[in-house]
C-alpha cells in the first residue's frame, strides 16, 4: 500500500515537473543559443509568455479546412503528453513504468507526427503539404534507426520498457561497450531530427521554403497553435529525458524510496541542464543540411544502430 502511494506521488510529481519545466527548457536552449551567437536573447521564461499570448489570441479556422482541423492539434498534444508520462525523469518505478514499452513510445511518436502532418495538409495549401512530405521522408529513416538502436538496448537489458532499460543499465555491470556508443550516436541523430533541431530543420527559421516542422503549423493560430507549440517543447524535454534515462541512468531515484528522490531530482536537473547547454552549442557550430541530405544522415544513423547490434550479436554468438 505504501509502495503504491509512493509510486502515485512520484508519478504525479514527475508529471507536474515535466509539464511545468518543458517551456523553461526551451527557453534555456533559446537563451544559450542567443548567447553563443553573440546576442542577448529573450529571457528564459519567454516560452511561458508566448504560450499565454497564444491562449488569449482568437483561434481562426480556414474556410477550406474540414471538421477534423481541430482534432490534429489535440491528437498531437495528447500523444506527446502520454509519451512524456511513460519516460522516467528523476526516478524509476513509477506507476506508468510497466506501460512504458519502447515500441509503444515509438508508436506514440508516430501518432503525434502523423497528426501534425495531417494538420499540415488539412487546408490544402502548398507549404503545409511540402512540410508534411519532408517530414514523411525523414521519419521513415528516423523510425527505422530508432528500431535498430532499440534492438541493441533490448539485447543488453533483456527488456523493452524504458524503465527496465534504465534500471538494467544502472545496476548491472554493462560497462562501456562499443555497441552503446554506436547506439548513442544513432539515437542522437534521431533525436535531432524528431525535435526539429538544426542539422535537419531550423526551429527559428522564417523562410517557408526551408521549413519542415513549422511549415505544417502555418495555418494554425490561437489555442490550436498553443497545443502544437507546447507539444514541441514537451518533445524536446522528452528526448532529453529518454537519452538521460538510457545513457546516464546512474543514481536515478527509486519511487519506493523517498530519500532517494532529492538526489535523483538534483541529478535530473543537472542532466537536463547539461544537455540544454550542449544542444545549442552544437546547433550554432553546424549548418542546416539540404533536405535531400537528411535521409543520408539518418541512413548513417540507421547503419550505426545496425552496427551496434552486429557487435552484440557476434560477440554473443562467438562467445565472449
Amino acid at each position: 500500500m505504501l509502495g503504491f502511494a509512493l509510486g502515485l506521488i512520484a508519478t504525479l510529481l514527475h508529471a507536474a515537473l515535466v509539464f511545468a519545466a518543458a517551456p523553461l527548457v526551451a527557453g534555456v536552449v533559446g537563451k544559450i543559443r542567443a548567447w553563443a551567437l553573440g546576442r542577448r536573447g529573450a529571457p528564459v521564461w519567454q516560452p511561458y509568455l508566448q504560450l499565454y499570448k497564444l491562449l488569449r489570441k482568437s483561434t481562426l479556422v480556414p474556410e477550406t479546412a474540414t471538421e477534423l482541423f481541430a482534432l490534429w492539434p489535440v491528437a498531437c498534444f495528447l500523444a506527446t503528453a502520454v509519451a512524456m508520462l511513460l519516460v522516467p525523469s528523476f526516478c524509476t518505478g513509477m506507476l506508468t513504468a510497466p506501460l512504458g514499452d519502447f515500441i509503444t513510445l515509438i508508436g506514440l511518436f508516430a501518432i503525434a507526427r502523423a497528426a501534425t502532418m495531417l494538420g499540415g495538409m488539412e487546408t490544402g495549401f502548398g507549404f503545409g503539404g511540402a512540410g508534411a512530405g519532408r517530414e514523411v521522408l525523414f521519419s521513415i529513416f528516423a523510425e527505422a534507426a530508432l528500431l535498430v538502436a532499440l534492438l541493441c538496448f533490448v539485447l543488453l537489458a533483456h527488456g523493452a520498457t524504458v524503465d527496465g532499460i534504465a534500471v538494467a543499465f544502472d545496476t548491472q555491470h554493462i560497462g562501456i561497450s562499443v555497441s552503446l556508443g554506436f547506439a548513442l550516436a544513432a539515437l542522437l541523430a534521431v533525436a535531432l531530427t524528431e525535435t526539429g533541431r538544426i542539422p535537419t530543420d531550423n526551429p527559428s527559421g522564417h523562410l517557408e521554403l526551408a521549413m519542415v516542422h513549422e511549415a505544417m503549423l502555418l495555418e494554425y493560430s490561437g489555442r490550436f497553435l498553443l497545443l502544437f507549440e507546447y507539444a514541441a517543447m514537451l518533445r524536446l524535454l522528452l528526448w532529453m529525458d529518454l537519452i538521460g534515462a538510457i545513457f546516464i541512468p546512474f543514481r536515478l531515484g527509486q519511487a519506493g524510496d523517498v530519500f532517494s528522490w532529492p538526489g535523483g531530482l538534483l541529478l535530473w536537473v543537472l542532466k537536463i541542464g547539461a544537455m540544454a547547454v550542449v544542444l545549442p552549442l552544437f546547433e550554432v557550430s553546424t549548418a542546416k543540411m539540404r533536405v535531400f541530405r537528411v535521409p543520408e544522415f539518418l541512413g548513417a544513423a540507421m547503419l550505426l544502430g545496425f552496427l551496434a547490434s552486429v557487435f552484440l550479436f557476434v560477440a554473443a554468438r562467438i562467445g565472449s
Partner: protein
Amino acid sequence: MSLTFSLAHLMGGIVLLCGFLLLSQRRLAAMITLYQIQACVLAAAAFWQGWAQHELNLYLTGIITLALKGLLLPYGLRQIVLRFNLRRAVESGMGMALSLILGVGLIGIAVLVVLPSTMRAVSLTREDLAIALSVVLLGLLVMVSRRSALAQIIGFLSTENGLVLAAIGMPGMPFVAEFSVALLVLLAFLVVGVFLLRIREHFDTLDVTGIEAIERRGR
C-alpha cells in the same frame, strides 16, 4: 571488466566511429577535422595504454601520434586545401548509401574474421583487434570510393591509424615498428604532397579520373 579495458575499448570505439563518419562525409574540411579527432583520440588511447601497461614506449607513440597526426598532418592537409583552392565537395566514385552499406559489411567481415581466429585471447582484446581491423578496412574503402586524390590520402592516413590502434592494444609490440610506421607515414605524406602538385600541374584538378583516362589510352 576493469576500467583499463573499458576505457581503452571506448577510445577504440570512438576511433572506429570517426572512421565510419569519414566515409559519410562529402566535404574535405569535415574529413580533415574527423581525421584530426581520430588521431587525437588515438593519442589519448596510447597514453592510457602506456599508463596501464607501465610502458614508456607507448607514451612516445602517443606523443608522436599527437604531434604528427593530430597537429602536423591536418595542418598540412588544410594548407594543401587552401593553396590549391580546393574548397569544394568531394566527388565520390560511388553513391554515399552504397559506400556506407559496404562499410558496415566490412566491419562485419572484420568482426567475423578476428573473433573466431583469436579464441584464446582475452575477450576485450579480441574486440579491440576487430575494431582496429575495421578501421583499416574502412580507410581502404575511403581510398577506393573517393575520386579526389586528397580524400584518398586521408583514407590512407586513417588506415595507418587503424594499424597503430592494433599495435597499442597488444602488449609487447616493439617500439621500433611503431616508430618506423610513423616515419613512413610522414615520408609518404611528403611524397604524396609532391605527387598532388604534379597531378594538379598536369590536369588542373585533383580528380584522379583524368589519370584513369590516360591509363586507358595507354593500353
